[in-house]
């Protein structure tokens, strides 16, 4: 290991020595000065760089940046468009929902109305039926009583006739028929009165 270290150190010294002529060339040669400017190289650098700036800005950076900006603008536009579309869609949906709700409410109203009307009609019809029934009953009762009265009158006349005929038969001979008849009539009137 010490041998290696020695070799390394000596190598470093050696490289320094061997590189030395680069910086301190023998008396005859001009020493290399790394900081000495070279007018020709400066001119070429200037020329090449300016040409490069002109060419690149015209043919590379301008289209490159323009394309990127166009892309950014397109992205921005499509984002804005999407946002607007989404807003419009949600508005439309809200409108649809409102319309649907209204329709549903209306339908419920219609059903309720129909039911109420039906109920009312049913009640009315029932009432009308009852009234009619009562009327019919009343009329029947009236007709019955009228008939009964007439029958009674008829019966009574028949009875009077029969009685007169029977009594006539009995007292045919001795009695003035008109006077008798008056007598019976009176009697019957008293009966009726009682």
């Amino acid at each position, binding site marked *: 290991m010490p041998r290696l270290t020695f070799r390394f150190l000596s*190598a470093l010294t050696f490289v320094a*020595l061997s*590189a030395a002529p680069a910086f301190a060339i023998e008396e005859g040669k001009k020493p290399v000065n790394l900081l000495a400017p070279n007018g*020709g190289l400066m001119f*070429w*650098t200037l020329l090449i*760089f300016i040409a490069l700036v002109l060419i*690149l*800005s015209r043919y590379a950076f301008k289209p490159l940046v323009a394309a*990127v900006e166009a892309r950014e603008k397109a992205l921005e536009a499509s984002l804005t468009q999407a946002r607007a579309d989404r807003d419009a869609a949600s508005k439309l949906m809200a409108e649809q929902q409102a319309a649907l709700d209204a329709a549903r409410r209306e339908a419920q109203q219609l059903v309720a109305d129909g039911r109420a009307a039906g109920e009312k009609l049913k009640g009315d019809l029932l009432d009308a039926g009852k009234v009619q029934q009562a009327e019919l009953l009343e009329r029947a009762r009236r007709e019955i009583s009228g008939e009964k009265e007439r029958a009674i009158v008829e019966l009574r006349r028949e009875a009077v006739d029969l009685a007169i005929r029977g009594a006539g038969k009995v007292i045919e001979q001795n009695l003035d028929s008109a006077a008798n008849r008056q007598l019976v009539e009176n009697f019957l009137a008293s009966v009726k009165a009682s």
Partner: protein
Amino acid sequence: MHAMPRSTARLAALALFALSARLLGAQAAETRPPAVPPSAEVRTSTEPAAAAQEAATEHAASGGHDDNDIITPHITDSHAIDVPSFSAPFVREVELPRWAPVHVGGYEIDLSPTKHVVMLLLAALIVISLLVLTARTQARQHDENGHTKGWAGGIEAMVLYIRNEVILPNVGPHGNAFVPFLLTLFFFILTANMLGLIPYGSTATGNISVTATLAAITFVVVEIAGMRAQGWGYLNTIFFWPHDMPLIMRVPMFLIISPIELAGKIARPFALAIRLFANMTAGHIVVLAFIGLIFYFHSIASGAPFLMAIAIMFLELFVALLQAFVFTLLASVFIGQVREAHH
């Protein structure tokens, strides 16, 4: 400024390394003048040691460039580029054309292309093809399915991250005008950094001329942004003239603070340039030193520097991304600072 300590430490390490190397080098040159440097082994250690020694001797005698040094050629600029080769060292140096220097107002400027110019051009071409292709693919995918995916999506995500999280929040309102410049800065520096990490590549951003130019461009953009945003108020960023102080205080404060403001203004691009340059250079020096150790050890012990070199390489990958990011971030912050009315 969170990256400051790291880069300062790296710069310090680099300076220390350079200094010690210079001292030791001078010493070495004194002690063993024309002798064959044993470090030739570093370049040719795949061959048997003796043969290597001979080859090195021949090479040194024939007067090629300094074979002792494997680091300097890799971190400095040159008039030759390395290209892949199918035969033995699998690398071939191709000389770049040399043009006559141009004279501009007393200064002589050599405009002939160098290795780093080639690397910058390569980085620019890679960035252009990558990003333009991404833009095309993105447009097609947008037409097809409205979003980006795959490779184009990844690049787009990077662009958007830098734009939305780094540039726009720091630059402030109406920062869109600065987006292409700052994005270009990021991708260009990132690609140039990465090119230094691949075989046959070289780090152009490890050259002070390149980083200084990028920082100077940034400085100009920052100051123009300040002038456009503040109008005459821009002068307040240089000349300190507090209105809420009595005149007797205002004048000395003006005289003391104004130079500091000006120095601060200039220090920011300076820091940008040095930070990128130092980070790129220091990392490469460390990696190359470890690679040198691998060949020097020439035994099982080579495994240690080998693993270290790999680890540092991963660190370099991260630093390449980080420094591109930091440069862009700080440029954004500076633009934002000068644009908002302050002081």
